[in-house]
C-alpha cells in the first residue's frame, strides 16, 4: 500500500520532468539525424514556461475546463497504472481522457480543429484494438488484470507475448502522433490543417496540452516496461533498456517516414494488430 502511494506521488511529480526531458532528447536526436545542431535539451520546458506567460486568447472558456479534465484523467490513468491497479480500467480511463481532448477541440467550432478532432477519433479507432489485445494477453499469460501481479510474475510477459508487444509498439506511434501517423496534429512545422487538433489552443491551453502529453508518454513507456518486468528486481533495469530502445525506434520512424492517409493508417494498424497480436493470442489460447 505504502509503496503504491509513493509511486503515485513520484509519478505525479516526476512524470512532467521525465516527459519534458524525453521530448528534449527527442528533438535533439531528430536534429542530429537531420545533421542539425538542434535546440537545447531543456527547450520543451522553455516553451511551456513561455506559453504560461502569454496573453490568454481563447474562443470559449469551456476549452480550458475540458483541457484540465483531459489533464486530470491522464494523471489518473498514470497514477492507477503506477499504483498497480487494474490495467483494463487504466485503458478505459485513458480513452475517457482522449474524449475530453476531442471535446476541447470541437468546442471551438473552428474547421481546422474540428477536422483534427475527427482525425483524432480515427486514430483512436486505429489503436484501441491493439490496446485491448495487450490487456487480454496479460490476462492469459499472468492470470490477472492487476498490474502489481503482472509485474511480479515469474517470467517476463514479453516471452509469451512477442506479437502483442510488437503490435503495441506499432500503435504507440499512432498514440504519440509520430510521423507516419501524425495526422490529427503534427510536431513538425505545419500541415494542411494548420495545427489540427491544437489549432485553437494558444498560450496557457497549449501548455496544458503539452504537459498532458508528457504525462501520457511516460505512462505509455510504463506499459512498454510492464512487458519486461518480472519478480526479479534486476528486470527493471532491462525494462528501462527496452524502453530506451523503443523510444529511439519511435524517433527513427518519425524521421524516416512521410505522413500516411488516414484510411491507410486504419487498414495497416488493424492488419498489424490482427496478424501479430491476434495470432499470438490465438496460439496462447491453444496452448493453455
Amino acid at each position, binding site marked *: 500500500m505504502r509503496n503504491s502511494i509513493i509511486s503515485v506521488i513520484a509519478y505525479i511529480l516526476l512524470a512532467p520532468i521525465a516527459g519534458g526531458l524525453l521530448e528534449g532528447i527527442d528533438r535533439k536526436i531528430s536534429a542530429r539525424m537531420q545533421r542539425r*545542431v538542434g535546440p537545447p535539451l531543456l527547450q520543451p520546458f522553455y516553451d511551456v514556461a513561455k506559453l504560461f506567460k502569454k496573453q490568454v486568447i481563447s474562443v470559449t472558456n469551456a476549452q480550458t475546463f475540458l483541457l484540465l479534465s483531459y489533464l486530470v484523467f491522464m494523471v489518473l490513468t498514470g497514477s492507477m497504472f503506477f499504483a498497480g491497479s487494474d490495467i483494463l480500467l487504466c485503458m478505459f480511463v485513458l480513452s475517457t481522457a482522449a474524449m475530453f481532448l476531442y471535446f476541447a477541440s470541437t468546442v471551438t467550432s473552428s474547421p481546422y480543429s474540428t477536422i483534427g478532432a475527427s482525425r483524432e477519433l480515427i486514430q483512436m479507432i486505429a489503436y484501441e484494438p491493439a490496446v485491448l489485445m495487450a490487456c487480454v494477453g496479460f490476462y492469459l499469460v499472468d492470470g490477472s488484470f492487476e498490474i502489481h501481479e503482472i509485474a511480479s510474475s515469474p517470467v517476463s510477459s514479453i516471452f509469451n507475448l512477442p506479437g502483442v508487444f510488437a503490435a503495441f509498439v506499432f500503435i504507440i506511434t499512432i498514440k504519440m502522433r509520430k510521423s507516419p501517423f501524425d495526422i490529427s496534429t503534427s510536431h513538425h512545422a505545419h500541415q494542411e490543417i494548420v495545427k489540427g487538433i491544437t489549432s485553437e489552443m494558444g498560450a496557457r491551453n497549449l501548455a496544458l496540452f503539452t504537459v498532458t502529453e508528457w504525462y501520457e508518454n511516460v505512462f505509455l513507456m510504463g506499459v512498454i516496461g510492464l512487458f519486461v518486468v518480472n519478480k526479479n528486481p534486476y528486470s527493471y533495469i532491462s525494462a528501462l533498456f527496452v524502453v530506451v530502445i523503443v523510444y529511439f525506434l519511435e524517433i527513427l520512424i518519425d524521421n524516416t517516414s512521410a505522413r500516411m492517409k488516414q484510411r491507410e493508417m486504419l487498414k495497416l494498424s488493424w492488419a498489424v494488430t490482427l496478424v501479430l497480436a491476434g495470432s499470438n493470442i490465438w496460439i496462447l489460447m491453444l496452448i493453455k
Partner: protein
Amino acid sequence: MFEIKRSPWVLHYDGSSCNGCDIEVLACLTPVYDAERFGIINTGDPMQADILLITGGINSQNAPVVKQLYDQMPRPKVVCAVGVCACTGGIFKDCYNILGGADTVIPVDIYVPGCAARPQAIIDGIVKAVDLFEKRLEEHKQWVAEHENREKTDKSAAAKQPQKAQQPAGETAKAQSQNSAQRRSKNAKGRKTAKRRKK
C-alpha cells in the same frame, strides 16, 4: 533561466512577393542555418505564434488578412518585415494594387532589407526581434495590471452607484427604441420606394 526569449515561435506570412524571400525564410530552417538552435519553430498557427515574419508587399486583397493574423496573435508579439517588398513595397511599389510595405496595415518592429534578404540577415532580424520580445513581456505585464485595475474600479464604481447607473441606461434604452422605431419606419419607406421603382 526560463526567459521567454528562449522560445520564439514564428508565423510566416507571404504577402505579395516574388517568392524569393519565402525560399530564404525556409532556408533558415535547413541544416545549413538551423534556426531551431535558438528555439525558433516555424508554426502555422497565429494563436501560438510570437513573431510575425512578413515577406512581400501589402495589396488591397491581403491587407485585411495580415491585420487579422496580427490581431489573432496573443501578446507579447513582434513583427518582422523581411525583404524590400515587405519594408516598402519594393519592386512592386508602383503596381496599381499595392498599398506599400507591411507597415501600411500593422506596426512593424524590425525591418530586414535585401532582395532577396539573405538567411543570415533574416536570422539576425529574428534574433533582434527576440530581444524585443523579452521587452514586450514587461509592457504586457503592465497592460495586464492596468487592465485588471480598470476592471476592478469599473466594478466597484458600478456597485457604489447602482441607481444612478440605471437611469441613464434606461434613457439610452428609450432613445435606442425610438431610434430603432425611426429606422424601421425609414426602412418601411425604403421598401415602399423600392416597390414603386419595381412598378
